[in-house]
């Protein structure tokens, strides 16, 4: 954590040497992490990295084999135990794995039940439920049976169930998995809105784009170990490289190899990186060229000037946030995999 606005007093959750073993398998190993008030922390990692286990320990659904979780209460960090979990976790909203609902209930019934379980005053519950459902644009569905809902709508109700009791911290485990792009965008917008409201959000995902679009801080977990934890910007700086996404018009179908070679000759000296293979590559899925560079804005400008000066018709020239993290993520996960294999 490098951001100066955060300090010891802004820590709302602290994982201290958190470890969880299942027999001989270590799902989470010596995890040390701090979540600060009002920030969005993204927990990234491939499937099986230990993300869900970490969140389940936070929700006290499973207990750590070693280490502790500390949660701020009345101004001081208290160790989460069986005795205090009730009131400490009142200020948390959890969405662990797939949200599944009883089919024969309505959002109003189930959200009211969840709110009141977590101590929300009964007399205010009705209005609160109507407000949060309206916030997701589902007002007209509030009294319909959940059995008639699409997967995306169920997921939205699942997310609402985490905030209906007005928690301080919202913990979401892969909230966008299996959703269509429109629903994913809506959920990202919703998370940013929650941040504006002052909520602290801890979100796990294996979708790099999802995390990079919303998170202030990213923790990368691999084989149960924390391999990186910092702000997005600092991680990029550590990676010492970023990606420019370049689209040309017309798209050079059939001449991709020639264009790539030509681009490499022109641009390689401007990237700020050591000469290497695949400094410039073509992504068939996005139909765009990807240029690796050191992230220096001056080099970015020079590259653009060189392209336009050499009569390339540039239709898109951008540095997507996900792209910036992708190589770092893949290299960290790959390194972890190699270590594990050894």
């Amino acid at each position, binding site marked *: 954590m490098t951001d100066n606005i955060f300090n010891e007093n802004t820590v709302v959750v602290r994982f201290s040497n958190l470890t969880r073993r299942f027999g001989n398998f270590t799902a989470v190993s010596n995890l040390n992490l701090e979540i600060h008030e009002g920030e969005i922390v993204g927990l990234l990692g491939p499937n099986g990295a230990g993300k*869900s286990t970490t969140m389940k320990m936070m*929700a*006290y*659904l*499973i207990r750590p084999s070693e280490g502790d979780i500390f949660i701020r209460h009345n101004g001081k960090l208290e160790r989460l135990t069986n005795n205090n979990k*009730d*009131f400490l*976790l*009142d200020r*948390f909203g*959890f*969405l*662990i*794995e*797939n*949200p*599944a*609902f*009883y089919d*024969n*209930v309505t959002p109003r*019934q189930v959200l009211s*039940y*969840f709110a*009141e*379980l*977590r*101590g*929300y*005053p*009964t007399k*205010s519950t009705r209005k609160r439920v109507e*407000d949060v459902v*309206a*916030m*997701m*644009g589902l007002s007209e569905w509030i009294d319909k049976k959940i059995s008639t809902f699409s997967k995306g709508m169920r997921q939205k109700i*699942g997310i609402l*169930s985490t905030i209906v*009791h*007005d928690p301080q911290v919202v913990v979401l485990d892969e909230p966008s998995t299996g959703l269509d792009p429109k629903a994913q965008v*809506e959920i990202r*917008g*919703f998370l940013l*809105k929650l941040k504006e*409201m*002052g909520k602290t959000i801890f979100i796990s995902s294996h979708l790099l784009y999802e995390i990079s679009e919303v998170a202030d801080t990213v923790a990368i977990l691999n084989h149960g170990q924390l391999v990186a934890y910092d702000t997005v910007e600092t991680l990029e700086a550590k990676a010492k490289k970023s990606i420019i996404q370049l689209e040309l018009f017309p798209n050079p179908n059939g001449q991709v190899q020639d264009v790539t070679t030509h681009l490499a000759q022109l641009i390689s000296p401007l990237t700020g990186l050591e000469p290497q293979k695949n400094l410039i590559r073509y992504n068939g899925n996005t139909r765009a060229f990807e240029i690796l560079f050191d992230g220096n804005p001056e080099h970015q400008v020079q590259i653009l000037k060189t392209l336009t000066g050499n009569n390339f018709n540039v239709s898109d020239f951008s540095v997507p946030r996900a792209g910036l993290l992708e190589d770092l993520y893949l290299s960290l996960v790959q390194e972890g995999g190699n270590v594990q294999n050894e």
Partner: protein
Amino acid sequence: MSDSALEEQTFAPLQEGVRTNFGKGRTFRQIGKTVVFDGHRNLKKLISMILINTLFVSLFVIINMLREYNPPEATDYVVSYLSFFSFLILITAILFGGSIIVEDFEKQTGNLLFPKIERGRLMVGRYLARIALASISLTIYYVEVALLTYINYETVPVIMWESLGWAILYLHLVLSCVVLMSALLNRIATAQVASLLVLLMVSQIVTEILMFTGSTIEPLFLPTYYSNIISAWFNMPDPRFGERPAFGFEGVSDRVFRSWATPSAEGAIIGVIIYSAILLVSAYLIYHRKQAKT
């Protein structure tokens, strides 16, 4: 969800002092909320069970009409409607209790629920909701029988309400067995079928074995034995067992087979309380450790 729609919503943070009570008050509040929520969710089962009960009553009415004979005493008339009542209690318990624990793992509904409420409270709340609904269902059966008795005899024997009390006590025991099955197994259907097999077939086999081995021990360890008091209460036998000489094979003819008719009132109350406590605590311990398949 449009930005404007978002902007229109204002959410003043909840003042922490407003959040409702902690400690023991919280426990009762959560159990109470669970009773209401789960009770509402299971109303359709109650309606189904009432229909099944009414069907049974109708069948007995038809049988009595075909026989063209009504017993001279109102109590005997009531007893004639209780022939299959223990089976009806079994069906009721399985319908209401089969899903009580296993459903959150089978349907994965526990992912949302378990972080919000401790499993013990959830189990207590659900148990109370379901035994209440199941008791209502049994009571309606008795009310229907009482109405028919009043029509035929212009009186309703008070003792039948005491019998209903025994029926609800037996329901508590059977429901406890079903809850344990629901904790042990991984599917609702499996839990229901296993409960039926254990309570019907296994109990019957053990009863037969006990009788033919000449055992004189009262089978208080068999859950189904407690059902006998529901109809026996109208005219408690003394002694509470019958004996008959063995027959057939040489060498056993001097032995006596003892068949127990019903537990005593004290035996039934103490037996059911101890038995159901063991079953429910076992179910809770399994439930507490049970993890969802991911």
